[in-house]
């Protein structure tokens, strides 16, 4: 087991290198650079900037160097000093900006993931056991409805409803009065009041997929001879369903956790933009827009690495729950 994990970790190194290169290429792809954004902002503010100044800034930000040198410097900083570079737009080291946001992103994504699991699990089992009944169709329909509704639309509508009809303060994860307050029971309640919107929005889009995977797996398993064999021993249906088919149907389900994460983060990106959540995504999107390259690149790198770790975790879980893989 340990050897397996070690091997997988070792495998991740070339992948991470590849990811960092792709991240860097991606942020270099669009024409222009942050300086153009800066010029646009200065112009909008009525200031002006001369060619000499632009050139000086280009040198100051090392934008005059070849791309591969910029890349190597960036990677060197990350490896040797944990320095992810400098954010032009925020005028701060990237590392000061990302961790808190990333943590909140994880909170929102993982809690959405949990929500979609909690919702998908009973629905899938119910609709598999009650296959081709009204309940099955209804639950499947509800699941698909969540999948079909574009995230941003759902987010906007829920935000609107919660503001106009329930009077909840909109946007963000806290009401203004709790934003700066220390943690307390009231603050948690307030967080939940806000968190439900992104959780529902992001969760619903993934739920349908989970329901489908689990339901189909379960239907496959329910027809397997070992279920009949277990019944022939006199074991009750509910008991054996949970002990055997559900357990086995969960195996491919677990393997989906890894690749659910990037989907959740993408879903979170759009939702967080609409809902103005202080998570990584809006910052990343803003950085991509303004070509704040190190900030954008670092986020891409870290988010993708998170996904790789997520995949690794789900593979390890898979090994733990499926002896067939373990003994291969």
């Amino acid at each position, binding site marked *: 087991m340990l050897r397996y994990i070690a091997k997988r970790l070792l495998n991740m190194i070339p992948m991470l290198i590849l990811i960092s290169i792709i991240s860097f290429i991606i942020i270099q792809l*669009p*024409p*222009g650079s*942050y300086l*153009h*954004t800066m010029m*646009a*902002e*200065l*112009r*909008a*503010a*009525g*200031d*002006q*900037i*001369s*060619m*000499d*100044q*632009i*050139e*000086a*800034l280009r040198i*100051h930000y090392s934008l005059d160097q070849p791309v591969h040198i910029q890349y190597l410097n960036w990677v060197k900083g990350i490896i040797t000093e944990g*320095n992810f570079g*400098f954010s032009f*737009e*925020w*005028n*701060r*080291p*990237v*590392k*000061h*900006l990302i961790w808190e946001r990333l943590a909140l992103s994880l909170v929102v994504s993982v809690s959405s993931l949990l929500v979609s699991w909690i919702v998908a699990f009973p629905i899938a089992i119910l609709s598999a056991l009650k296959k081709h009944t009204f309940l099955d169709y209804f639950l499947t329909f509800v699941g698909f409805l969540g999948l079909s509704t574009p995230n941003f639309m759902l987010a*906007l509508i829920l*935000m*609107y409803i919660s*503001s*106009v009809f329930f*009077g909840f*303060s*909109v*946007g*963000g994860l*806290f009401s*203004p009065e709790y*934003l*700066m307050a220390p943690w307390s029971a009231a603050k948690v309640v307030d967080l939940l009041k806000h968190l439900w919107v992104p959780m529902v929005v992001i969760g619903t889009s993934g739920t349908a997929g989970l329901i489908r995977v689990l339901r189909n797996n379960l239907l496959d398993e329910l027809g397997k001879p070992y279920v009949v064999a277990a019944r022939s021993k006199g074991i009750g249906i509910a008991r054996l369903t949970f002990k055997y088919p559900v357990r086995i149907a969960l195996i491919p389900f677990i393997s989906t956790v890894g690749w659910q994460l990037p989907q959740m983060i993408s879903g979170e990106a759009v939702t967080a*933009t*609409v*809902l*103005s959540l*202080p998570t990584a995504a*809006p910052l990343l999107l*803003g950085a991509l*827009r*303004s*070509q704040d390259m190190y900030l954008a690149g670092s986020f891409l790198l870290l988010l993708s690495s998170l996904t790789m770790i997520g995949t690794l975790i789900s593979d390890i879980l898979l090994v733990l729950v499926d002896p067939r893989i373990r003994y291969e």
Partner: protein
Amino acid sequence: MKKTLCVMLVLTMLLAYSSVTLAAYSEAPILAERVAAGELPPVEERLPVNPLVIEPFEEIGTYGGIVRNAHRGPSDNTGYYRMVREPLVNYDNMLVEIHPNLAESWEVSEDGTEITFHLREGLKWSDGHPFTTDDIMFWWEVQNTREIFPAGVGANWIAGGVPVEVIQVSDLTVTFKWAVPYAAFVNWLASGQETYLPKHYLSQFHANYADEAALTEMAKAEGYSDWGQLFVNRSGERTNWRALDKPTMDAWIMTTGFDAPILISERNPYYFKVDTAGNQLPYVDTLHRILVEDIEVMKLMLMAGEIDYITRNLWTTYSDLPMYIANQERGDYRIIRTHGGTPGALNLMFNVNYDEDPGIAALVNNYDFKKALSYAIDRDEINDVRFNGLARPGHGHFHYENPGYVEEVDQRYIEYNPELANQILDEIGLKERDANGFRLQPDGRPLTLIIDGSTHHQHHSAGGELIKSYFEDVGIRTVLNVIDRGLYEAKREGNQSMISFADLADPLIPLEQTGHKITYVMAPLWELWFESNGTQGLEPPADVIRLMEIYNTLAPATSDVEVRAAYMREIAQIWGDNFWTIGTVGVPFNLAFAKNNLRNVPADGAHSHPANPAIYRPYQWFWK
């Protein structure tokens, strides 16, 4: 004449001063508590010898409360600056008169090259440290520090090719000496430019005063590459202009950062202004700026009553006006229309240096072609569908209330007359059409106009669709290309743009914002010629050279409104003769929102980007 005005103003102030010194000053209850607890000296000792007396817009207010505002985070930092900044001198709320502020008085030398400011005596930073001309000298030192400003001092501090010379005359007197006459420097400062930094605090981060090796180490430890970046972070110079822990002269002291969920500012006990009853300002204890990244959320918050005052970010959302009005009762706010606005929304900037296609290049420089296109635009429809009829058709470089406004030039060729447009286009050799009915270039090649817009401006997309259809109605194939702001700027700079949309704001101050000169003509190669002092780019024609002369030397030399207005009319004429751009419509006002019981917010005010909303004097707003 200006000088006399200043002296008179100072005299009035002195009179006001003498009348209030008789009464004892009052202070906010929370400060009184701190005084009682021995944490603060009494108010008399905190105020300068002669505090600035402010007459409230409506009435004497009461202390306390929080004013909630919203912003979009660090990139939106200028909004905070524009609300609290304290320049040496200040405009009134209509941008007409200049009042003393930190400077009690000032003089401009006869030749207009030397401007001398006399600081108020006994001014104190928010930490109680005295404010003197040392802080101005330190500021200038910082501007000239390469590690902090790698590109050197900003263009605004250079006139006639030579940077300003800052001369410390005494602790309270400082002179700005220019190589060429620059009387308008005072106007520029008054619109909101600060020229000081807390030397007693920031010198510890500057290598001229502290050990460079230690500073560098400190910078590295915090993730900065050099001490310059560290200084930028501590001073906010070049970035937010405000920074945590940095002493300030503002009415409120920032206690959380720009990236905090709420930027919270608490009252400055050493603030140097009092009302006419001798109450130390500000009235409001705390400012909140809530970080909201999405403007739609901001609107919802406003309408839910969660924002007490806002103008920035929502000031040009004209098409939402029906919604704001419909939700006024729920949000308990009033809508203030400030003068200024966006006289040119959706202006078509023709790139006169465009050179990728000689045929097109000739057309974008063809007066009659642009005249025809102008006739092809149905401005009434744009006004109706985009601005609910609130807009005003015209070419929109100047607000109609601007003294430099020339009606004939602004209203030239703005009638909707597609027949005439077609006739002109036929006449200038664009008679031949392709199978789809689109006009061909005289040499038979297809003719396609590409208009760039920026996603940053909400009209560019919807309004652009209208423009496209108007042009196609008269047979000009048009491609609309609304792109991200950075790309849009990169295209313009790279001389790749054929035509682009721009929204023009008019500061109402004649020739104040030199940066906006770009709005009169789009010509990247001419700009390059000016910026490279004639070594690169293309030499512009005489009209443009005259334009730049007015901008760079003639107008700055004088602060006489009449003279400047005359220059402005000349610019309008030059523009009219060349017809570089086509305007569509503009909205003569901007939007601001204030809670109904937030008082002393002026019902009328001018809107200018650098000055607004500080000229509405937030320090004398109060909750009634």
